[in-house]
């Protein structure tokens, strides 16, 4: 039996040292981060009035899990047709995601839907196209009916077509993967 005592003693030492080996901890998230994601954290719509080059911007801010933190109201003037662009950003990584979408135009399409009290006041038209001539929606125009007033929402949807090719006449209901789907409050008047 005695010759096993050193064996068990060294075994015990091994176990105890393994259990206490926590000084240099692998679980501390380092510089490279632990679990970074390709998230869209900020969405900004910039509308330019071509008559006087004045701009309206509205930013929506989301957290890492995509929960809306704040969204600015888009205030529009009746009778104006705005030139619009949408930009997407990941503020956590300092990444411009607009570029990514721009690089993959064939796989993306934005949809803009005026809802509520402004559903009849706004007419949105997409002005850019992909290599197949299908709409993309990074650039668009919003025509505000003269004499209109009221408040409502602008629903912004980004469809991602990686499972099947994007086709002509896509609708929100046929989107295979949704990257973005939220609303901006809008006032007209």
């Amino acid at each position, binding site marked *: 039996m005695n010759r096993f005592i050193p064996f068990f003693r060294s075994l015990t030492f091994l176990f105890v040292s393994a259990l206490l080996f926590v000084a240099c901890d692998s679980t501390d998230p380092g510089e490279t981060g632990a679990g970074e994601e390709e998230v*869209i954290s900020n969405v900004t719509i910039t509308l330019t009035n071509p008559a006087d080059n004045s701009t309206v911007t509205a930013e929506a801010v989301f957290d890492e899990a995509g929960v809306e933190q704040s969204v600015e109201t888009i205030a529009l003037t009746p009778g104006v047709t705005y030139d619009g662009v949408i930009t997407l950003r990941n503020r956590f990584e300092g990444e411009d995601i607009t570029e990514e979408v721009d690089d993959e135009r064939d796989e993306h399409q934005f949809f803009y839907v005026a809802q509520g009290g402004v559903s009849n006041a706004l007419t949105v038209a997409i002005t850019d196209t992909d290599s197949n001539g299908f709409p993309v929606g990074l650039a668009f125009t919003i025509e505000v009916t003269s004499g209109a007033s009221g408040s409502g929402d602008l629903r912004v949807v980004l469809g991602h077509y990686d499972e099947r090719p994007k086709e002509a006449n896509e609708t929100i209901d046929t989107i295979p993967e*949704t990257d973005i789907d939220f609303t901006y409050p809008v006032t007209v008047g």
Partner: protein
Amino acid sequence: MGVFLIAAGLHSGVLSANAQSIRGRVLDATTQAPLAHANVVVADTRRGAATSADGGFAIDGLPPGTYLLAAQYVGYETALRTVEVVAGRTATVEFPLNPSPLAVEEIVVRAGMTEEELLTRARQSVATLGPDVLERTRGQTLGETLKQLPGVTTMQTGPSISKPVVRGLHSQRVVVLNAGVPQEGQQWGGEHAPEIDPFAPARIEVVKGAAGVEHGVGAIGGVIRVEPRVLPTTPGLGGRVDLNGFSNSRQGAGAVLIEGAPAQVEGFAWRAQASVRKAGDAHTPDYVIGNSAFEERNGALALGYQTARTGLKLYASRFATELGIYRGSHVNTLSGLRRAIDRDRPAVDYAFSYAIDAPKQSVTHDLVSLKGVHRLPRGDRLEVQYGIQRNHRQEFDAHRRGGDPLDEPAFDLTLNTHTLDAKWRLPPRRNAFGVVGLSGMNQANVNAESGYLIPNFRALTGGAFAHGTWIPGNWTLEAGARFDTRWMKAFPRADGAFERRTHAYRSLSGVVGGIWQFAPTWSVATNVATAWRPPSVNELYSYGVHHGTAQFEIGDATLSSERSIGVDATLRHVGDRVRLETSFYTNWMNDFIHLFPTRDTLVTIRGVFPAFQHQQAQAVLRGLDGHVEFDLRPAWAVGARASVVRGTNVAANMPLIGMPADRLVLHSTVRLFEGRRLRTSELRPELTLVRKQTRVPEGVDYAPPPAGYALVGVQYHADLQVGNTPLQVGLSIHNLFNTRYRDYLSRWRYYIDEPGRTLVVRVRIPFGTAASGG
């Protein structure tokens, strides 16, 4: 005269059946001390007896003949004696037992060694799947195999992921012991199946109900004990080849096992095994389940060395799987989920394929364990087991911003766990024996650079326990207590950075139980046990949308530990023709942690989601499960098993979500012709009836529970002799009538039906010592 008596006995065996008997004693070979409560079993019959305080036993009513008797006692070698029973006479036999040189395999109070033992040893409801049953189901996932036990159901995520549910509880509430080491993977995920090679186990036991004293934190709902084969002790080289085919997914599986004990090195033994599986997309009766293909590659190596007093065992295993997730279940918006539910079948007509595309899971689990056992001269037994595990899980979403989803996982977690368990088993004194133990665990979870689901964390757990058993007469009484403490630090995200949070939990577990063998073939066992578990990291910190369920899940870092207090009563009967076990239980759960819908919805960049928060409430689970088997004829048995669970959130006075539906299985076993070539063959039809789950909380789920269903299956099993090789052949058909059905606990029940008819072919070819020794 003697000749005449034997002849008379043979002719009128029935009449004189009670006239002859076997009497004997079981003793410690060295001390000559009587061994009480040893089991004496008559081989090839269901007869047996337990020894009384003076080591004596009696078996009456055997027809005259020659019998093989086996005497078994914990910590001793089993002894065999041939006894000739002569009509009208009493045969006497003495069994001096030698302490077993070593069993590195843990000696546990376990069911299934003999059915007689079940009557006297298992305080709790224990269900066992022995090698014979496992052979008939070889190649299925662990969860599918466990479904055969009353009280156990599964939570399915398609054909490849099936998670055992014990009496309504699963995941971090059920401890899985793989070769004695608590399996540590990312158990919290409902679609994370236990990482265990279905070819490896030689026996599987399920302890139903809380077993916190023996198994520490987490053993609230039960324990699943998966044991590999015992290493060979007789010199020689042997092994076997298993081949399986499953028609539904065109799955092929194979396993090779080689083991040996070299004659030159006494006490040394080894075993190596490997298995592979490759399955394509499964079919429902009407369509292909797109991207449900999977692959598995597993291997294990065991080395053992034993002397009279000391034993060492090294066990190493790898489990590696890659499995596709049905594409249509990966919806990331509420509207997408609603569309998928309304559609009621896949949007696309998928073609069969073996390809595994995104979304998919890729998981490897490595385990190395070293176990040492040493017996002191007085009979004390020391056991030390050290285990190291590495669980690497990568999950790939269907969709990834800016690239191919297969390039970068949506999350990538590595969980490293060290466990150390030490036990000191005290030698039996009079009618009592006991064990004290210490255990420790050090666990680290690390996210790779990309992807995030749960935070990095480190957890240190330590525990100490004592457990004693006292056997006065027809009673077996047990009591035990345990203390555990866990410290954890976690690094949840906070607006682009990581916070450091620490948590500490400590609490007690306890058990008091008794078994009363009130008649030779009847016993009743009852058990009061309490166990606890600290909240798991996802319950503390999850924050995001769960794919496939379209719920925004929110953790709560202030959650406290959850405690269960369970009362269990089991009636057992092991008769000549009837075998029965029925359990009733109530499990009160204090501070039961569960997801509960909040009143608010959450506005996210992908639309509005219902928010579910991890909350605590008083809950209670009640139920009964059991089985009965009845031999109608020597070659024809019928049986039934049933499980009923009722879970209630007492605080909110509503049913708990996700409780298994009532289930009844009727089966019949017919032994067919037997001969020299076809040694045994058996046909086993089975009817599974599952009721619709009607007890569900209102307004929480997206779709009502599916209708009840009835499935018919048939198994055929044969042992053949081809030349010198004993072959085992199995043929079974699951879902014989290609019934369309959905199961309430299937995570894909919102979208698609369960798989249709499957024909399974199994062949086992032993070689070497395994072929000759059986």
